[in-house]
Every structure is written in structure tokens, then in C-alpha cells.
């Protein structure tokens, strides 16, 4: 789900509260102008074969639920099965279709279909999961223990990097790619490592131990890495681990206050969600100061039944939360100011189980 930019300075522009500080003397924070968003693409994974791409038009507050179909009448069957992740990189949208085993490339401007990149290798489904981008390339993790490198001009897989078991989320820093190895298919013997991949050689350097069954990875302004992990869904709780991006030697488990399986960082502010063993939508954490900003992000009476995706508009700090509700009926997306007060919300019907919001500028 991580729409990443390698320019750390860009990320730092979101100065929520007093969080935006130089935490590392070597980092020079340069405010960069970001164009305000005009709308948002929402990916809803759905169930078998009914992944939907919706488009929310900010100017007139309208939603086109099945935007992909509207823009691509020649593809009436739609995107396919289980859109697990989507990133916008350059002029294209990359939609990771987990069960259809393709990465669908769309024009980022109008969602017009460009190409399907097959994730079937030797007659076996690779199971693509998450994508990130760096240095002009798109990196896609697959459950078969690899990260595929997509050339964004050729739109082909040019290289396959071997990582750990059943990788999930991944993020790129200036020099490295961090890939969470969940080992989820080896239940109950989950993995608990992050593969450190050198972006120059595109080879795994080493594995860094993190919490059990790691899931999402994100990076803050200083280039430090935070890894959320599921645990074993019962006796071992979810956790968040911290990796120093300068040394990449080992991780620190942030402890029992961080029992969240999902993390999304904007600048230095982390939103932790999918709370295990408690209520609440999202916790707001300052990764630079190592302090909580709010235990509950939402400050008004808005209720999110099942927070299933979260993204931050880095231009104004607005937080968009996708609500999967009961995973059967249409999902909704609610936009909040960074003060946790609802601004607006919209249904993505016929989209079910929305998991990702990408801003169009």
C-alpha cells in the first residue's frame, strides 16, 4: 500500500503539531511545495474477482464507484481478483492483483489500462502482495519469497530478488529496500525477519530480526524503519519494531503499547491501526520524539467499524481511513483533518473492503 517517494525531504513537509523537527543533524529538511490533491483513487479488494477502483472527485464531492469500468469499457470483467495494493509512481498506477497474479498498470491520470504484468512463473502463481518504488523502478513482493523488479518504461519484470518466506510490506530508503518476511504460509512457524536489500546490487544483504509475522514497513523523515507485525493472532500479540536506518544492524521492539498490525507514517507521524485486543481506530505516534500524540486519532463521534486502509494527504495532513465494515457490504472512506475531526466521507459502492487510498494531484 505504500506510495513512497525516495526524496525524504518531500515527506517532511507534513508538519503536524510540533513533530517536524530535525532529528538527525545530517538530514537537511527542505520544505517542498506539494500540489493540493484534486481527488483520490480508492482500491477495494472485494472478494473473488470483484476488485474495484473508485475515484473520488474532491471539487464536486462525487464518487465514481467503478471508475476502472467507466474508463475501460473494453475490460468489462474488471480488474480481477483481490487487489491487494496500489501505488502511484511517475505517471502510472500499479495495482497489485494478488489472486489474479498480475500487476495491472494504469495511466495515473485517467486510470486507462496500459498493461497486465504476469506474476506466474513456471506455471506457478507467485502471489504478488505489495509494491513500492525507488530509483525509477517498482518493487513488488510476492508470497513465493521474492521481490520482482519492474522496469517502469518497459513494464516488464527485469529481475527477481530472493528474500525470506512470504514477504508482505516493503519500503525503500535512499540505499536500501526493507521487506517484511511474514512466513505466513508456514503457519504456525511464522518468520520474524526483515530482508535488507541493497538497491545498488538488488541483492539481499542480510535479514534483521523483528516481531513475529511482520506485515507492514514504513519509514520516517530520518530514514528510520518501523515494522508492524501480526504476532500469531492469539498468544503472541501484534508488535512494532524499530530499525535504525543508519546502521540497519538490529531492531528494537517498541513494547506492549504498540500492539498494532498496521503502520502508516507521514513525515515523522505514524498512524497505528488494527488494534489487537482493544478498541479504537488509530493511535498517533511521533516517531522522532518517541511519544504518543493521541491514543485515539478520531476526536469527534465518528465511528470506523473496520479500519482497513489509511493514508495521509501529505500536502495538508488530512487522514483518509477506509472502512471495510463487515467485508461484505460496500466500504466507505472518511477524511479527517489531522486534528481527528471528520471532514467528509463517501461510499465506494460497489467496492467492498477498501484497503488503499492514493491521491491524485
Amino acid at each position, binding site marked *: 500500500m505504500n506510495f513512497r517517494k525516495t526524496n525524504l525531504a518531500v515527506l517532511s513537509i507534513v508538519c503536524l503539531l510540533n513533530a517536524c523537527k530535525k532529528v538527525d543533524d545530517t538530514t537537511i529538511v527542505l520544505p517542498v511545495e506539494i500540489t493540493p490533491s484534486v481527488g483520490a483513487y480508492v482500491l477495494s479488494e472485494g472478494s473473488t474477482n470483484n476488485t474495484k477502483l473508485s475515484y473520488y472527485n474532491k471539487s464536486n464531492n462525487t464518487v465514481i464507484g467503478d471508475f476502472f469500468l467507466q474508463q475501460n469499457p473494453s475490460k468489462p*470483467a*474488471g480488474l*480481477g481478483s483481490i487487489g491487494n495494493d496500489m501505488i502511484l509512481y511517475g505517471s502510472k498506477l500499479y495495482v497489485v492483483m494478488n489472486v489474479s497474479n498480475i500487476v495491472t498498470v494504469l495511466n495515473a491520470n485517467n486510470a486507462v489500462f496500459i498493461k497486465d504484468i504476469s506474476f*506466474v512463473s513456471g506455471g506457478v502463481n507467485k502471489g504478488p502482495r505489495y509494491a513500492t518504488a525507488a530509483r525509477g523502478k517498482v518493487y513488488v513482493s510476492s508470497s513465493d519469497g521474492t521481490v520482482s523488479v519492474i522496469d517502469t518504461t518497459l513494464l516488464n519484470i527485469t529481475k527477481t530478488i530472493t528474500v525470506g518466506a512470504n514477504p508482505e510490506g516493503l519500503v525503500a530508503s535512499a540505499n536500501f529496500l526493507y521487506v517484511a518476511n511474514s512466513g505466513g504460509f508456514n503457519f504456525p512457524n511464522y518468520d520474524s525477519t526483515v530482508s535488507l536489500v541493497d538497491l545498488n546490487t538488488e541483492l539481499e544483504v542480510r535479514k534483521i530480526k523483528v516481531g513475529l509475522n511482520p506485515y507492514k514497513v514504513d519509514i520516517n523523515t530520518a530514514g528510520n524503519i518501523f515494522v508492524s507485525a501480526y504476532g500469531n493472532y492469539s498468544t503472541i500479540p501484534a508488535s512494532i519494531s524499530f530499525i535504525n536506518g543508519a546502521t540497519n544492524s538490529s531492531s528494537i521492539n517498541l513494547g506492549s503499547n504498540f500492539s498494532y*498490525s498496521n503502520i502508516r507514517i507521514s513525515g515523522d507521524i505514524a498512524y497505528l491501526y488494527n488494534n489487537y485486543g482493544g478498541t479504537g481506530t488509530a493511535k498517533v505516534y511521533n516517531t522522532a520524539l518517541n511519544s504518543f500524540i493521541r491514543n485515539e486519532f478520531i476526536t469527534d463521534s465518528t465511528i470506523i467499524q473496520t479500519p*482497513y486502509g489509511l493514508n495521509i494527504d501529505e500536502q495538508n495532513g488530512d487522514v483518509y481511513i477506509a472502512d471495510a465494515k463487515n467485508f461484505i*457490504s460496500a466500504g466507505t472512506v472518511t477524511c479527517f483533518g489531522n486534528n481527528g475531526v471528520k471532514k467528509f466521507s463517501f461510499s465506494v*459502492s460497489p467496492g467492498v473492503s477498501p484497503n488503499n487510498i492514493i491521491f491524485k494531484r
Partner: protein
Amino acid sequence: MIYVVLPFFCKGQKHDTLQNVEVISKKNIIITIASTPVQLLNTTDASKTNSVTVADALKHFAGVMVKDYGGIGGLKTVSVRSLGANHTGILYDGIALGDAQGGQIDLGKFSLDNIAQIELYNGGPFEILSPAKAFSYGSLLMLKTIASSKTDTEKKIANVKVQYGSFGYFSPSISYKQHVGKKVETSLNAMFQSAESQYPFTSYENNNVTQKRKNSDIKAYRLEYDASLTMHDSNKISVKTYYYKSERGLPGAIILYNNINSERLTDRNFFLQSNWHNKLSKKSELLVNAKYAADQNYYIDPSFLNTAGKLENEFSSKEFYLSAAYSYKINNFFKISFSSDALNNRLKRTDSFAVNFANPSRNSLLNNVAFQLKKTRFEVTGNILHTLINEKVSNGKAGRNINAFSKAFAMGFQPIKNVPLRVRAFYKHIFRAPTFNDLYYTNVGNTNLKPEYADQLNVGLTYSEQRLDFLKNILVTVDAFLNTVNDKIIAVPTINLFQWSVQNIGKVNAQGIDVAVQIKTKEWRDVQLSAHVAYSFQHVLDVSDKNSSLYKTQLPYTPKHSGSSTFSIEYKRAILNYNIIFSSLRYKQGDAIFVNLLQPWNTNDVSFSYLIGKNYPNNYKIIFEANNIFNTTYDIIQYYPMPGFNYRIALNILLKKTKTII
């Protein structure tokens, strides 16, 4: 080859004394006088419906929804009046088929080749002298095999059937039945079935492209051996041994832009059952049933992306069952019965991926008291069932014990003497216990589950006339029902789609009408016409959660209108049948919006059979079946395409050697 196997048969013996007329009228009587709706289909009728399996034949029953995942090997489960497949009990020659693991028996496993009669009872059994288990279901499906049906006249009888059809379908079967002396009867039945089942379907991605179903092959065989000893007319012991094995591909849902699937399933089912029916006196009868069953299923996904490079699931289950039922006639119109059943069900997971599986063992004790007050024009029946279930596990927590009473009452009467119209009503309150899968399925199961309750209310009319000018008989049944399912057990995702949990959160309100009409004309110049029409209206609402957008919307995969019809013309030795099955639109799971809508469909089948040697003991029947003749594209379950046009040819050889020859 067939003749080598059966060298003792000779031709030109005594005429077939089977009284078809009597069979039909007796059947009609049960349908008419029963206080609860009954639907019956015998071999003759079933052969008119272009059916291979019991599931296919049940598509012709009113109020029955067959969830058919397509193809010979595709799963086929049956839900009666929207109660859900778990509320349908299946009795195979009088004894319940085990259902402790999943609770939904695949009726595609039961081919029609050895089935003499299919009976479906809404509510309980027709006879109050029945095992307690027979009273424990929302509806009861009774399958009676050829072995259990009466054949007094034949000393030796053999039936050989060979079927060949589209998509590599091939199925030979043989039944052989023999009388040994006056008291002993033995029979053997063997069936083999294989199909590639790679049938074409219209691509979901592009209407103009045809794709083929993959990994949908099946190989199955079944062996049954029956023996019975009849001491005298009213004292009979029978024993049945059954073995079924199948190995099949699981083609799964069609996945857009991807057609890779390699999952396989192997099933083994064995049981040994015995039945002793003894009329102790003019007033009292005893029925004792016993069964041992051992089932095994093995699932493999050879392309699973774990370190081992495969995923295996292997379960083995065992059932021990003992039942005694006793009935006593207090006077000519009042009868009571008592039955007591004890069961033990065990499930073990035996594959290398099994981790801390509960390996449950369940003891059930069912006690039932029933009464029947029967006068010519008036009948009242009722029963109270007590169920005691307790469970032990080797790992983790055991499911809740169950200690519950359930009940059913039914009445029927004929308001006007000499007018063959009867009015009937029944009420039944019953539950189904959580299955082992509901309770213990790894990471999903929930041991806190309560039973799922179903309440049924039915009022209906039956009309049966046998003496009309041109009609041999006409039979009409109309029933309206009101069903509710409470604490419905459903699997729901919790925090995310990795984590599902089984919970008692469903609630369903169903209202509906079932109509069935059967007409048969008298023979006129060797021509006889018959028709069977069934129609169901079902308004079935999900009332689980007031805050959900699904509240008060029609239950997924439940058409409002569905039905079937069979028209037959018999001329001398030839029978021509035309079948239609239809379903109105319905929604798949999700909001009741256009994208979740599944289109209405209907299929049209034609069959033709010709009998050579109709009036002789040895006869030959050739059957041509053309199915889905208009090549309709349809799914019953979305993305599980059903076969288009296909055909079957069958040759049936019946060989008899009568007692009189000896």
C-alpha cells in the same frame, strides 16, 4: 463381457410381475395423506429427469435449492426451504449418514444407478417407528437403494448399466441380487465413474471467447453389499456394507486473468450398518439399527507457497451408532413410539501440518417420544426429542455441552367426505449442533458456539384424484411456510481477512410457497402423457443485524422464483421426456445492487429411452440424454460455470431368473 459375468441367465422367462400402477398410487397416497409435505421420486420418475446424481434429481423438488458448483465432481449440497444445508439429514437405507465434521453432505457423491427411491420430508419422518436421529433434522432426505427394495419374484436379478457422455464421462455399474433359499437375500452393487469434465464455458473476461474448465476430473467407485434374513414376514434383519472412494480435482472458482489450479481431494467413505425390524405382536414393533462408519478425506494443494511446497489436510472420522425404536398401538387409531439413539463421533487430523488440532470426540444421546392419532379423515402426530451432546478434546477447549428439547406437531384432515382434498399444518422446532469444523477448525473455529435453531411453520392443501375421464391421476400439493433460523452459525472475517471466526450471529426469516402438480393421463392408443411441475416462491430475508446494509435483504443465492417441470410421452416401448429447470435472478453475497446480481437461468433437457423386451424378464433399455440443449450459459454459484450442451448415452441391461424356474 457382461454375459461372461452372468452366465446363468436365460431369456424368455415369465412375464415381469412388477406392478407399476400400485407403486405409483401408493406413492401418491403418502404424498396426499401426510401431514407434513412429502416429495417422492422413484427410479422410473428419476430416469425422466436427465439426472446422474441424487443432487440432479433433487433440482426437480419444490422448495429445494441445490448449490451446484458444476461438473460431475463439483460439490452439490442441498438446502430445503432456506434452512441451510446443515439442516437436511440424509438417511441411507434407514440410517443417517454421518455429518459431524462439516454437516453438509455432497449429494453429487450419490449416483442414481442404485437408488430405488428418493424421499424428501419437510419436518420429520412419515413413520413414527423411526430412529430418534430421523426426528432431529429440519428436513429429511431418505435414499432407498435397490437392495433395500422388495423384489419377491426374482430368484436372481442383475442390472448392468453403462453410461457414456460428453467431457469424458464414463460410468459402468452393476447390481446383482440373489435369493438364497427362502429367507436369505444378498445383493452386490458396484459403480465406477470417471470424467475429465473439462467442459467449455464462456469466458468471463470476453463473451466471444470460450475457455475450458480445468482440474475438474474425477474418478470414483462405490461397492455395496447387502444381505438380509427374513425369519418371517414381520421379522427381518439386514446388513449393508458400503465403500466409496473418489479422487478429484478441485477446479475452484474461475479467477479472472488466471487459470492455474492444482488442488486435489480424495474421499473414502466406509460403513457397515444393520437393521432389525421385528413385529413383536399385533400391537408392538421393534426397530433396531446399528452402524459403524469410517471416513477419510485428504486435501492437497501442491503449489502452496510454504517451505514444504505443499499444503495437506487429512481428516479421519469415525462414527459408532446404535438405535432402538419401539412402537405400540394402543387402539386402532392411536399409536405411540419411543426411540433412543446413542452415537459417538470422532474426528482426527492426521496430516503433518496438523498443529494442536482438537481431535474431538462427541457423544450424543437422543431420546424421542412420538404419537400418531390416525383416523380416515383426520390425523395428528407429534414428537418431543431430547438431545444430549457432550464433547471431549485432546487439545484446547471442548465445545459446549448441549441439553435441549425440541418438538414437532403436525395435523391433517379431509374436510369433506368423498372429496379428495386434505388440509395440513405442521410446526417444528429443531436445532443443528455446531459441526466439528465450526468448533475446531484451526484458527477459525469457536468452541463457544451454541446450536443453530430452526423453526418451521407450514400450512398446505393436497388434492389427489384418480377417477377422472381422461386422467389416470392428478395430484396437487400447495404449501405455504414460515421459517426462521436463529443463532445461525456463520463464518465472518474479524479484524482482517486472514482472521475469520465462526459465530452464532445470523438470523433468517423465510416465507414461501411450494407448489407441486403431477398429472398422468390414461393410456389412449398406447400413448400416455405425464407431467410433473414444481414451483417455489421464497422471500428470505437476512435479519441478522439492524445496522448492516444487508438487513432485510434477500439471502444470497436464494432466487425468489424457482421451479422445474418434466413432461413425458410414453408410446409403447419408447419414452420421450422434456425437462425444464429455472431460477429467477438472485444476488451473490453482498449488497443487493446490480453488480452482485446473478442472471436468471433455465435449462432444457431432452431424453429418449427405448425398451427392448418390455414384457420379458431380460430386457434392454437404451437411453439418450441431451442436456442443456440451448447451450445456456449460467452459474448457480458465481464463477463456477455450469456445463453447456452435453449428452449421455446409457445402456441398461436387466437380466432375471425367476423363482418358478427352479
